[in-house]
């Protein structure tokens, strides 16, 4: 019988302890991903640890360093609409608004978006659908990958939360807490680059807040979707132009198991290289994989085109 116990811990410490004591436990905030995975019998949470009963986890406020602290349980809607975010981190607001639909954004949280289970066309499906693809490594611990059939190991499920690209570009940090202590981690170090073991969370650890440094200049965020306006991204591009010869960011997310930075391209961008050179270099650094919709050739062409447009637009931004 497929039942999960549902528990509402009163504090982070309690939640963390229960998570450590129950290896099958899952944290739930909005539940917009967890409940679907559970229904598809991809995860079997026991128990579900509901976080929204814990006070102060949804707050958004200035922090002592001139940046902003966003509680992990703040909804995407709350994040997108908050004056501090809209003013200081407009790309983050834009990314939050690009997620799904208003109904989902009212429940889904930024913590959930950051920790979103990596996604794959062949994984996020019902048991009936998966009968034909029963050897998926992530779904059943099987021996195959249907995205990269020639691979012998590894999983290529994608990091898919739209807010992650802007958070990497902004240089956000995560506040991680467990019953044994706490730590601060650069968000880039949070993703391990594997579709199955994709987050650097220790046993019992949870994200309690996203810490944003002081605002940078203006940039560009693009969520490219082939089809309708509900879907996950074919790719996300977040771009910050250099300021005074440094600090540019070219982040491509939702195309791999972790968000990707084109470091050498950023260096060229910092040095004032022409846009085409920056884009060509970036495309060399961003490995792309074909999915059912979105062949590698298609994604390369569109990503390069949108990156070129974004760099040109950034140039105009700087002149303003």
């Amino acid at each position, binding site marked *: *019988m*497929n*039942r999960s116990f549902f528990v509402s811990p009163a504090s982070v410490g309690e939640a963390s302890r229960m998570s450590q004591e129950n290896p099958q436990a899952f944290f739930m905030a909005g539940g917009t991903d967890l409940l679907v995975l559970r229904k598809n019998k991809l995860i079997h949470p026991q128990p579900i640890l509901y976080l929204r009963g814990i006070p102060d986890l949804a707050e958004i406020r200035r922090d002592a360093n001139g940046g902003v602290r966003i509680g992990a349980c703040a909804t995407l809607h709350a994040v997108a609409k908050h004056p501090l975010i809209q003013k200081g981190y407009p790309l983050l607001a834009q990314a939050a608004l690009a997620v799904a*639909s208003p109904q989902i954004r009212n429940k889904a949280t930024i913590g959930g978006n950051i920790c979103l289970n990596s996604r794959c*066309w062949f994984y996020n499906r*019902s048991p*009936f*659908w998966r*009968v*034909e693809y029963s050897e998926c490594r992530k779904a059943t611990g099987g021996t195959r990958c249907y995205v990269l059939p020639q691979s012998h190991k590894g999983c290529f499920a994608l990091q898919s939360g739209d807010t992650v690209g802007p958070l990497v570009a902004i240089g956000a940090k995560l506040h991680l807490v467990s019953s044994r202590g706490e730590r601060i981690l650069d968000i880039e170090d949070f993703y391990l680059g594997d579709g199955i073991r994709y987050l650097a969370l220790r046993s019992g650890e949870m994200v309690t807040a996203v810490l944003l440094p002081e605002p940078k200049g203006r940039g560009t965020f693009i969520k*490219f979707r*082939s*089809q*309708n*306006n*509900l*879907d*996950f991204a074919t790719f996300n591009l977040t771009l910050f132009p250099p300021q005074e010869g440094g600090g540019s960011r070219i982040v491509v997310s939702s195309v791999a198991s972790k968000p990707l930075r084109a470091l050498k391209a950023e260096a060229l961008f910092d040095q004032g290289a022409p846009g085409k050179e920056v884009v060509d270099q970036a495309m060399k650094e961003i490995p792309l994989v074909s999915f*059912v*919709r*979105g*062949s590698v050739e*298609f994604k390369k*062409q*569109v990503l390069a*085109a*949108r990156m*070129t447009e974004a760099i040109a637009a950034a140039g105009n931004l700087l002149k303003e």
Partner: protein
Amino acid sequence: MDSPRIITKRVNRPDSFAKVTGRAKFTMDLSFPGMLTGKILRSPRHHARILHLDPTPALKVPGVKAVITARDLPPVVYGFGDRRADMTVFAIDRVRYKGDEVAAVAAADEDAAHEALERIRVEYEDLPAVFDPEAAVQEGAPQLHDDSPGNIGVRIRINKGDMDRALAEAYLVREDRFDTQRVHQSYAEPYACVADWDAEGKITLYTGTMNASGLQIMLSRVLKVPVGRIRVIQSHTGGSFGSKVVLNSIYPASAVLSRITGRPVKMVYTREEEYFASRPRYAGRYYVKTAVKRDGTILGRELTFFYDAGAYCDMAAAMIIVCSHRNDSVYRIPSIRTDAKLVYTNKSPVGAYRGYGNPQNTFAFDSQLDMIAGELGLDPAEIRLRNATRSGDTTVHGWKITSCGLTEAIEQTVKASGWKAKRGKRRDLRRGIGMACTIHEVDDRHSDAFAGSNAHVEILPDGEAVIYSGEGEYGQGRDTVFCQIAAEVLGLPLESVRILLPDTDITPYALGPWGSRVTYSGGLAVARAAEEARKILLQEAANMLEANPADLHLREGKIFIRGIAQPRATVAEAAHFALFRKEGKRIRGSGQDEPATTKMDPTKQSSPCSTYSFACQAVEVEVNEQTGEVKILKVWTANDGGNILNPIGAEGQIEGQVLQGIGFAKTEEMIYRHGHLLNPDFMTSGTAGPFDAPPLDIYFTKTHDPSGPFGAKGVAEVAAPPTAAALANAIYDAVGVRIKKLPLSPENVLQAVREQGGPGR
């Protein structure tokens, strides 16, 4: 008649309050004492023999009350209505698509039902499968049905005029292939039903069907139960767009489970089941060869057409009759030669989706018409005006066009869209505009038997009126229009008229939702019923007032004597008088519409429709050749629906149709890989949503139909068909790239750009 008070005015839907407050009860909301949950076991194989089927282990699951297979039903092979019979409720010895029904369970809750399904033991032996219609008709292809060699379920060959001569005399002959994809209707409410087979042997079925009368008959045939022992009650329905006219296996399955368990049984499709096992739009492959004169006059068209039906014919057998020849009548085409094949493949069956094949046909024909115009150096609007069907025409199939706003629609579209300043002039901006036209049947006849609508209208002692009609309300606005018509005829305020959802114990037989006929045929029946009620009412009022009925008239629920400004009585008083006097009389009128049409037969000349609707549509785009993105800047529609009785409803019809048209044209596709459906959900199938809706201009032509109720026709299906062709034509105008395959997604557009010469052309 006085100028209309209620029809043609902007009024609210009678059911809107119940729906927006969440109080309207849909099938899923229904709950009965002891009710069980039912679930279907579906084949995971595309094509296989069933070697062994043992459902008994399912009964060991706690909470499971019954499990059934084909053995528990009479061995009836059926089709849609009286069409080709090739289906059984459950597979008997063979499954023919992934999703085919094998068994069903009834249990105390959904978890138990799911577990029960997992316990049913089935042993399959795979058979080779075929998924492409042209491959399926080849020699040596796997055969799905023993009595359909070459996997052809239905074949229609049409030969009218003299096509060989047309080809010989033509200045230009174009030959092109077009492909369209499967898409789902994407209605919000999935298939659902509650069945109750009671101790007296009567079956009550609650479901959101469009076709209660027809469903009652089909269920009777399949279960071998007399029609009088079956009651179908339509619940509020969350959309259908053509799908919910069929006999879904869940109806007889839940009925039989109810008989065995002695309890009501509810079955609800998951959204995934909707993709695997309901009735989406067929994928069509069109080989079109058209002959024209130098000035663009069309001489003839030859069509070879593959209709990919999936594993069983069902509704497709009726549909191919219409869609194999309907679009021949939008332009004046003197010669037609068509070979249409309904082909079996190992995929789910298909069904009706707003347009009934029209969107696919129009994509093929009107894309090619633009290609022809291009070769001749003609403006696409001009070539359409030159060939447009007009009022008074008899078309190549014998169809008599008694009213036609097509020319006005094209001229209006040209004017409103700024066509002349835009077409062929903005390629440097990668902007373009394209158009397409269509015809749609209104009230088409498919049998020699009764093919119309019945209605009763009763005036109650409190002066309110109730309408009884067997036509369904599934969001399209039947309730509104019928109440408007009755209120208009009876001189009652709209709020005083109400209507019941179909209930076959109470509402009279109606043909159902074919060819946009509900306003037309159902409306005529309601108008006649209201008129008869009116006569009875006035007679009674005359007796009550000791006046001459000819001197009385009705307005706003009151009765006036001619020449006297003050009302003499209320309708309520007259109704009360009638009912409660000695030898009292109900005020109940009956009305019927039986269309004066002949059975549709594409191979002969016939007059199968009461009338025809027309439309023209233009789409303006901006194309990004680097990314394949096509931004729709605006859509202009000009629609001939006759006299528009319900403007808000009609506008809603157009808005919904254009959005569905955009989905079909651009964003939606059911993707099959080796027969396996990859994307069974809204998100990844690309269903268009509110944020995909473009700016939209809606125009209704000033057409009055001589026989429709108050001059009305139908608008339900006339604005969806042109969008895909108009969009493809607009993309061609913008970047000189011609795409003959849907959807016009960024990936497909980019591929076409690459193949046809790269950006910067």
